[in-house]
């Protein structure tokens, strides 16, 4: 087991390296730091001095890969690639273009993100599975038909509509919850209800269909027929046998997104002004703060790869058929 995990860990190294090089290429080679400086300082009438001052202020004044002016080891460390990219591996995100410490910001902002994303995921999962099980229980009936129709309709509506409509209906007309904002402790609860409900509802369409397909496939298998032949009722068959066996794909599907929950949801957080990482990213995109966007790209990839790793480990724990080699 330990050996397996170590091997999986080793496998993530080239992946992370790839992501790192890709982001570096995207942010520094496609457009040089000079272009970035000019963009930040306004397009026209930018003097060379202003550009180089901006670059020095933000640490972009070094050569890209090899600094020939410096001595032996510093040839590599005194470069943009080392300073801006390699340091991401040890989670040193550096200073944002507006002068804030990105690492500290991330540490502070990931908890509100989690507060929205985790309940959304768990409640959404519960609702989706229940809806799917209901459809499977009443399969080939009008209930299933209309359930599927509802799913298609729900998934055809833009997520923005749910958010804007929900805010308008529940906050502006009915005044049940505040439109947006965030609080600390129990106070946060009233701000969280609407985003969670909206993300559960908007995910119900595709989620319900997906789990239904999963269960339908399972329902036709031999062990289900056996269970029915033994005289178990349909609900027993579904909840004990089918759900139990379908748990493996469900679980692995959830585990892979768990680490990404820290990143939050971009539009949800910005609509409800929740001070999480999602709105942090959006603000950075709108301000064209490349240091933050670059850090978030890398952080997101790390979390995703972590999710893959966890999934693999979960597989081996849950599914006895998967043998460790």
């Amino acid at each position, binding site marked *: 087991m330990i050996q397996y995990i170590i091997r999986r860990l080793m496998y993530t190294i080239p992946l992370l390296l790839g992501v790192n090089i890709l982001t570096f290429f995207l942010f520094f080679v496609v457009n040089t730091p000079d272009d970035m400086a000019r963009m930040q300082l306004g397009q026209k009438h930018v003097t060379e001095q202003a550009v180089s001052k901006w670059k020095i202020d933000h640490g972009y004044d070094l050569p890209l890969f090899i600094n020939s002016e410096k001595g032996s080891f510093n040839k590599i460390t005194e470069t943009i690639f080392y300073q801006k990219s390699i340091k991401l591996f040890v989670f040193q995100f550096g200073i944002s273009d507006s002068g804030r410490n990105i690492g500290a910001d991330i540490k502070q902002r990931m908890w509100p993100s989690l507060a929205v994303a985790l309940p959304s995921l768990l409640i959404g999962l519960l609702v989706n599975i229940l809806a799917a099980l209901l459809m499977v229980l009443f399969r080939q009936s009008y209930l299933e038909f209309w359930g599927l129709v509802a799913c*298609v309709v729900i998934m055809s509506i*833009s997520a923005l509509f749910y958010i804007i409509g929900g805010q*308008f209906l529940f906050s502006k007309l009915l005044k049940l919850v505040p439109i947006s904002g965030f609080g600390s402790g129990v106070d946060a609860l009233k701000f969280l209800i609407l985003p969670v409900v909206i993300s559960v509802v908007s995910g119900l369409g595709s989620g319900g269909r997906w789990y239904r397909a999963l269960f339908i496939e399972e329902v036709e298998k031999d062990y289900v027929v056996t269970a029915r032949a033994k005289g178990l009722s349909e609900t027993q068959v579904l909840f004990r046998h089918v759900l139990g066996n379908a748990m493996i794909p469900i679980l692995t599907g959830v585990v892979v997104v768990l680490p990404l929950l820290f990143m939050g949801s971009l*539009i949800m957080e910005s609509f409800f002004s929740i001070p999480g990482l999602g709105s942090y990213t959006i603000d950075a995109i*709108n301000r064209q703060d490349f240091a933050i966007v670059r850090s978030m790209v890398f952080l997101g990839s790390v979390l995703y790869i972590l999710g893959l790793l966890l999934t693999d480990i979960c597989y081996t724990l849950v599914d006895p058929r998967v043998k460790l080699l």
Partner: protein
Amino acid sequence: MIILWTDALIYLLLTTAMVSGFFLRNYEGLKRPLNKIATNKSAMVSMIILVFFIAIGLLDSLHFKAEGQRASGVISVLDYCTQPLWQQTEKTYSAPFSAYLYSKAYITQADGYQSWGFPRLKFGGSHLLNPETEKTADVLIKLIVGLSKGFIFCLSWVGLRALYVAKKAGQSRLHVRPGFVGTTIIVVVVGLSGIIELSTYYHILGTDKVGEDVFYQTIKSIRTGLVIGSLTTFIMLPLAVVFGILAGFYRGWVDDLIQYCYTTLNSIPSVLLIAASILMVQIYMVNHPELFTNLESRADLRLLFLCLILGVTSWTGLCRMLRAETLKLREMGYVQAAKVLGVRPIGILFQHILPNVMHIILISVVLDFSALVLAEAVLSYINVGVDPSTYSWGNMINGARLEMAREPVVWWPLIAAFVFMFILVLTANLFADAVRDAFDPRRNQHD
């Protein structure tokens, strides 16, 4: 005649689709799935509505120069057909079918007397003398006139067709229900004709902040939605197909390399990758203004870049599926037999592998379409979508969402964009489901 990049690609896509349709028209293997789609009512209705959407999009993709019409002087055939819609602009917001402006202003009457009230619109309902009393009846009359115009048009068309079809009856090889399809087309055409008739007299979906007709904006947005939904898959298909099949077929280091590539790309959250790429494109465009001469081509190139970036970030899913399928196929008896008989790898790839993964490609193309249309709106909201000057539902929503705070609520631009987007996505979803049911061999075992 001015050919923008996306125009050219759209028509290239259309020609490709038509040519392959022409060559495959007698292909036995397609008959059963196509028949299955043809007998599916919801799929046929969706397809007809989609065809109308596509027709509008295609009309909007033929640009030509018309001096003095617009600031840029470039208009599309659709613009030409809907001239009254975009030439008749009001001052600011006005509600759908309203004859009055949304906000109050000083009105100077004929006798020089000024009063404070809602001024009449310059164009919307301007033919009415007294909107309060006449409007409802007038709208109904115009609607009936429009509907009957459409009905007469359909009747004459059906009559002409009856003469033509009578001569060569029994030619159709597909089990299409002519009555059902015909009725649907007639309903859509009659409805459209009613809308067209009304929209020449009223702003049927109101006007926006600068007084532009919202109905015009929504139909202009159709093209953007279609371009993003179709061009993106068109761009990503070659990548996904070539890499997926090669990885599955050759195994070994090719497989390792390709797997590494798509796992790396896949591990970057797609929204962030898109945002980062679009930011880079923005910088590039700002620093190289000489490459983008006018507003139209600038917006067009940004749209193309968006499709490119979306394509590059979305090929991984299909690639993985194709790899898995090819891995299965290469162990099949007929592929092994072909190998033993000395067919070259290229021959095997084209004759045995590619035709057998076609259904996966087709299903993923139609399934991706609706997701991409929805993604456009979200991306425009984060400011990494299409150019702000391009008409798109995302831009409409983005521009209108703050107006929900006004009193009375300005709801029409939002609802218009959502409803049109909903119709397009819903029909695309229903059609995609039918295609998947028809072409996926796993789903056919059960019935």
